[in-house]
């Protein structure tokens, strides 16, 4: 329950922090922290234009996508406090529930019969396939490390003993930041601010969505960011009481948002053909974490 509330609060400001960081780094003052959310509120009030090619899938997909992210957030604990849904192996369901939302968004893009949206859908399917192993190897390593197999138990029994384990935490945060960037189609893979449809991924999939649905999709992106931020923060707040863990949660989330802003300001988008290589790096980093865990457990003898 705690984590659900915190993630909701953070999702309201997350993209505000990113945009603010980018503005300051490019020498502008930038809009207020709440401005992206106000844009979304405006969209929620608007009517919509719907393509005549589309079927009921186009109408259902945004709501189902939103529902899938909410369902995933329900599984995320806050330190010692389990999520509303917590059971053995919940992180498997976490990944697959997100896949449900992705499935529907992809077919809703194909539903419009537009060639651009098909292109975006194809890329989304490819990248999400490539990024998934990194997440599972990461969770597998921590399951091995702690001997537990649910989000809550992994995070509440996670203790840092040696230097290597701090290194593992750092690497895990790196992998998760990158997963979040890829899942939300942000900078090194995709530039949400580009105006060329041929080079977009996620933005081009939702070309035909408008009004309430577009607002919902944009808000879901914010929620997803906050969700991954919450997972990252869980790597560090496991053993603290609320009065320390809640401020730490916000500090880590804001740090995450600023990091995203910095990456987006100083990195150019990769060429589309190089993206798979980049995503594979994440898998190898998580394999590194796995071997690190084996090392910490002393099994490499």
């Amino acid at each position, binding site marked *: 329950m705690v984590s659900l509330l915190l993630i909701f609060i953070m999702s309201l400001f997350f993209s505000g922090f990113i945009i603010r960081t980018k503005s300051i780094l490019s020498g502008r003052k930038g809009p207020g922290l709440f401005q992206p959310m106000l844009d979304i509120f405006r969209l929620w009030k608007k*009517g*919509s*234009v*719907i*393509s*005549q*090619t589309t*079927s009921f*899938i186009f109408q*259902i997909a*945004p*709501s*189902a996508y*939103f*529902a*899938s992210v*909410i*369902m995933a957030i329900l599984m995320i604990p806050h330190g010692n406090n389990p999520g509303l*849904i917590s*059971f*053995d*192996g919940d992180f*498997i*369901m976490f990944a*697959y529930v997100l*896949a449900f939302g*992705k*499935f529907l968004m992809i*077919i809703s893009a*194909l*539903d*419009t*019969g*537009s*060639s*651009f*949206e*098909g292109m975006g*859908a*194809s*890329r989304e*399917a*490819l990248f999400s*396939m490539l990024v*998934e*192993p990194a997440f599972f*190897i990461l969770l*597998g390593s921590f*399951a*091995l490390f702690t001997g537990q*197999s649910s989000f809550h138990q992994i995070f509440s029994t996670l203790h840092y003993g040696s230097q290597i384990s701090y290194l593992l935490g750092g690497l895990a945060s790196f992998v998760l930041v990158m997963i979040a960037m890829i899942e939300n189609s942000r900078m090194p893979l995709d530039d949400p601010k580009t105006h060329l449809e041929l080079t977009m991924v996620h933005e081009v999939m939702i070309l*035909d969505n408008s*009004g*309430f649905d577009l607002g919902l999709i944009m808000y879901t992106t914010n929620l997803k960011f906050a969700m991954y931020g919450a997972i990252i923060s869980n790597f560090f707040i496991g053993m603290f009481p609320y009065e320390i863990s809640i401020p730490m949660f916000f500090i880590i989330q804001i740090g995450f948002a600023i990091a995203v802003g910095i990456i987006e300001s100083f990195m150019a988008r990769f060429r589309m053909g190089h993206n*798979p290589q980049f995503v594979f790096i994440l*898998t190898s980093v998580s394999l590194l974490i*796995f071997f690190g865990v*084996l090392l910490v457990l002393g*099994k*490499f003898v």
Partner: protein
Amino acid sequence: MGSAQLIGLMAFTLSLGIVGLIIVNERFRPFLALFIVLINSVLSSFPALMSFTSGPQSGVLNLPHLAGDIGIRIDSLSAWFILIINFTSIMGVLNGTGYLKSYRHLKVNQELHWVFYVLFHVSMLWVCMFEHGIAFLVAWELMSLSSMMLVIFESHNKSILKAGINYMIQMHLSVVLLTLGFVFLYVNTGTFNFSGLALLPLGPHWIWIFILLFAGFAIKAGFIPFHTWLPHAHPAAPSHISGVMSGVIVKLGIYGIFRIIMYLRTDWLIFGEVILALSVVTAIYGIANAALRTDFKQMLAYCTIENIGIIGIGLGIGLIGIGNNNQMMVMLGFCGALLHTLNHSLFKSLLFFGAGSIYQQTHTRNIERLGGLIKKMPITAGLFLIGALAIGGIPPFNGFVSEFIIYTGLFKGLIGFQGVSQAILLILSITGLVIVGGMSLATFTRTFGVIFLGTPREELPHEPHETSHIMLLPQFLIVAAMLSVAFIPQFYFSYAGKVVSSSFATAFSGIPVSFTPVTDTVTNIGRMALIFIMLIIVMYGIRRLLVRKRASVTYETWGCGYVAPVKKAQYTGKSFNRSFGLLFNFIVKERKTIEKIPKTQIYPSRVNFSTSYIDILDHYIVSPLAKRLTFALNYFQFIQNGRIQSYVLYGLFFIILVFLGTAFSFIY
């Protein structure tokens, strides 16, 4: 009623039914076939259900004029498969009744088709019942032959006949291996029964018997590199037959593997690790091929290979669990495999039936020629979407339940691993399974999207419309069964648990571990699926409530400023997965055929260019091997000269040979 009487009764119904099918009016034929299948299903389901409650049902069949007793044994493992066979076969008849209506002109073929269908059903049931090796092989052979006859329904078509012959040859390869295995077993133990495997002396031979039998069953199941019959046979067969074949026949290979590993007494670890590695490779190989096929039935056939891989992963985990003495892993691995067998038979037959409806309405199997069918066939589209989500293992459908159990087994194995190599194998298996999941997402979004969504890409011979009720009915029933697995998985899980604990009793003989946490988790999965569906409905309800009063305009798809959209410019199935093709070109090679432009040509004329993907194992290993064999065997063509006189002579030679063989037996 004893098991022997049961077999007799089934044979009686079968022979009466076949006579009936031949004489009855063609209009009633499908209904008579349904009736016969129903009777045999009821007859066989009774002992199957009994074996869950009151232990294995066994009996002895004593045929006159034949030496030896034929053992029959219906334990819970057989029961699990018997129930799956019955359900899928009944659905197959229902769907076939509608599907074959468009083939009214093929009267003789229809008659043969139904005769072989009932025979096929009974032979599959017998495969699960016979304990005696020779009787088992006879049933196995009956099943292979009758299914071959079902595959070549459109026998006037050369390519279909070729696929049928390919299927027959590969099935006989499997029979040869199995026969060798059983003979080997008889020589070593003096019995043809499966249970003889447990009596094998642990000499140098025993492992070869297991390997022979495993290879024989693996051909049926479609593990690589024995999978090459699947992608040819499934597209060739009528859709309801593909559904039943993919749903059940390949599963009998799994049944056989299950049956033999039950009797493994040592070296579980090495068997488990080999099966696990082979299965992961099979799954990736299958789905990589499926992702790139444009023939949707071939795509589904490759997808079957993928799912066999997933089932195999479950088997591998179970075996490693026995080796590690980790009861949790044994339970999760084998239960996952059994549940995935059930789930796959459900959603794969659903998808094949849907594919049949599409083929019947559009007369094409090429997805690139379709599009926008959701407007014409909304119910088929909805059912296909449910099947596509389920096969991708996506909650809230049933595919997720079994994949979840297998994942949990892998993670439990990882936590309690023994040895670094095992940990690496397990983490790589998890990675493989995840990649397979991601690729099946891409495969099925593509298939569904290109067939049903967008606008039609080509003019079809006639306007497609929703198929008949008789074809939709089984699909609805299957969806109902799928949802029952998704929402109350604990019910199915408890039965799978019974099968596992009775089949692998030795593995559970040590300190008993409580499986309540697992059962609770499985119960949770069903509850979560329900919550998830509710959440989606609530969200959609809120959205509808909010946008009800808003202005909504219907307009053309945004063409980025271009106002005359072309249907051909839509993303195609090929382009959707082209980047996958580039990444996985070490598994699936793209072959481009370009017509060369002659240098002397002055004016440009029409030039053809085509690309296709080839299955490397089929193309580089199996086909060349077959070609070499044909070349060598051509020298023996003089034997098959078409003269009856010489054939009689061969018979005489053979008798003399046998006689001499027995006469000189004292040497041995």
